[in-house]
């Protein structure tokens, strides 16, 4: 936070300050501002207090807001997620950190059976304003239990909102929206993005849930992506532009709900579409998108919907496998090219 460089956003009539900061700092800033704004917001998780979180996202929050609002928990994911569910039904707005998305699998009950279901099965008597903050994705040196991308699991479940920010600005603006939402939000950060730096317009920059971002306009093919695949796909699009291929890149940001209108509008315009994500291809989020697009835009398609994801194996440890496990700039380039032939 200390190294943040201030500059003025000249593009905006409202002279909101724009700061360069990392994705992790942007999250920290959003948490601090929401804790400040709303006394019912609390933060819970392993090592989030005095230590500031293993990725530094909750740094200094306990010192500033006290141990009753920023709570270190035992290594009891079921226990503290359930605690958050009970607290949310009684008027608090817990933001829970689950250190790795892989660990949500030991406490899925509280996310899927409890947080997602209780508002519905009580006939709307309770609301569930919880944010399940976690991070996912592969990085060199990770193995199969610290690298998964499980967005398709969460997006499958009615009652959950699923967000996956790709930039510091979105990390900030989407977390604020998530905390203010009265529905349970699974907030999927990416471990490879924490150190990335970008401009963030502070204060009231809120990214409404359900809104995608067209990060590059194009006319020949639509690339649908999110999270850490966004920069990979953008660099592929840059390379293709040199060959005269115009790629439209949509950062979906919100996987549930999906910005269906933006997706369909783009696909109908380009007639070609490839989905690129880090989750496994089989049963991945891309399968849902492919299904939706063929149902609602079949007549506009000039080629089958392309799908790229991780190989359907657990992430292998040795770095030699990295380039075959995930989509790369080169594999994205060839997928985008081949859908046009």
């Amino acid at each position, binding site marked *: 936070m200390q190294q943040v460089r201030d500059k003025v956003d000249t593009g905006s009539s409202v002279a909101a300050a724009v700061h360069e900061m990392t994705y992790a700092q942007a999250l920290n800033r959003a948490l601090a501002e929401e804790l400040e704004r709303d006394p*019912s917001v*609390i933060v819970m998780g392993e090592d989030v207090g005095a230590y500031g979180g293993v990725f530094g996202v909750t740094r200094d929050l306990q010192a500033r807001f006290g141990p*009753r609002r920023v709570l270190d*928990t*035992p290594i*009891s994911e*079921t*226990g*503290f*997620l*359930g*605690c*958050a*569910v*009970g*607290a*949310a*039904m*009684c*008027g*608090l707005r*817990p933001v829970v950190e689950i250190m790795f998305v892989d660990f949500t699998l030991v*406490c899925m*009950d*509280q996310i899927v*059976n*409890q947080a997602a279901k*209780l*508002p*519905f*099965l*009580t*006939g*709307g*008597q*309770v*609301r569930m304003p919880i944010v399940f903050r976690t991070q996912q994705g592969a990085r060199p040196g990770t193995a199969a239990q610290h690298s998964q991308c499980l967005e398709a699991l969460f997006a499958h479940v*009615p*009652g959950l909102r699923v967000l996956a920010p790709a930039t510091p600005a979105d990390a900030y603006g989407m977390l604020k929206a998530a905390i203010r*939402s*009265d*529905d349970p939000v699974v907030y999927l950060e990416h471990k490879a993005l924490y150190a990335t730096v970008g401009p963030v317009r502070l204060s009231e920059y809120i990214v409404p849930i359900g809104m995608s971002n067209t990060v590059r306009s194009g006319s020949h093919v639509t690339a649908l992506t999110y999270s850490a695949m966004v920069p990979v796909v953008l660099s592929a699009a840059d390379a293709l532009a040199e060959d005269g291929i115009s790629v439209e890149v949509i950062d979906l940001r919100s996987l549930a709900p999906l910005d269906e209108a933006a997706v369909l509008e783009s696909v109908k315009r380009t007639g070609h579409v490839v989905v690129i994500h880090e989750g496994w291809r089989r049963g991945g989020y891309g399968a849902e998108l492919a299904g939706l697009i063929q149902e609602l835009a079949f007549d506009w398609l000039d080629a089958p919907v392309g799908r790229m994801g991780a190989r359907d194996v657990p992430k292998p440890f040795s770095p030699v496998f990295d380039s075959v496990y995930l989509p790369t700039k080169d594999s994205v380039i060839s997928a985008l090219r081949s859908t046009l032939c």
Partner: protein
Amino acid sequence: MTATWPADRLVGLYCQMYLVRRFEERCLELSRKGLIPGSIHLCIGQEAAAVGAASALRSDDLTVATYRGHGHVLARGIDPRAAFAEVLGRQTGLCKGRGGSMHLTDMSHGVLPPNSIVGAGLPIATGAALAQLHKGADRVVLCSFGEGTLNQGGAHEALNLAAIWSLPVIFLCENNQYSEMTPAYQMIKGDSFATRVAAYGMPTTKVDGMNVQAVAEAVAQAVTRARNGEGPSYVEADTYRFLGHYQGDPGTSYRPVDEINYWRARDPLLLLAAQLSAEAGMDMRLKAEEESIEVALDTAQQAALDDPLPLRDDVWEGLYAAG
């Protein structure tokens, strides 16, 4: 246990137990007639635990019960018609027909959603309690569950959380000797659930779960502790479910007849009625009370049966917050 409570107070508890018993017997009838879809898990035989515990609460305290929770929620004073309507899947039900028998919720009476995932309620109860501390409120949370639940990991995580954060929770274990069809003591080493809980650092009490006053007093002590900021307690009520695990289980193939008879002779309603009958005119008084409860339940049940079903087009209702 202290001296026997005054008759008026005990009659009040008797009436509540009677209400629970008759509500459930009526549910069983409705289920047999095919009017209640799905399973119901009756607490017949265990009414003293539910009613005794609820009697120790203030009206703004909170309850987290389970699928076997009809007793706990009725004892909080919820409207029997809305409860009938819910088990019948009506739009007028407590949960607008979205929850059914296992999830009778009434936030306006401090009744949080009862859970049908064994063990899930304990962590949730800790959160409800944490929220009270956060608001500076002195409400307490009564969290009930069966003894089999103490083999579920999340339950232990919650006991530990409640202890380290000194949360105002009363963990009420209704030890009905069986988890579904499995004898409870086959699934733990030794003969005590309470010793496990004591290891988390909270007081534990065992109480005769067929004696409503004994349960009420044990829970009242735990409530006082919780309200004074001294943290959670564990109360274990020894009890028995007279019927099967659910309506489709006769409950006889895995339980010896002698055992069933032993516990049936300790029926909490019979015990209390026998104790009260020493008072002159009491038999008549209880009879009159029973009759008026019967009339009220008749009316509630009939009204619920006449109530409308939810509209199919409203299938999404409640899923997400408005807007």
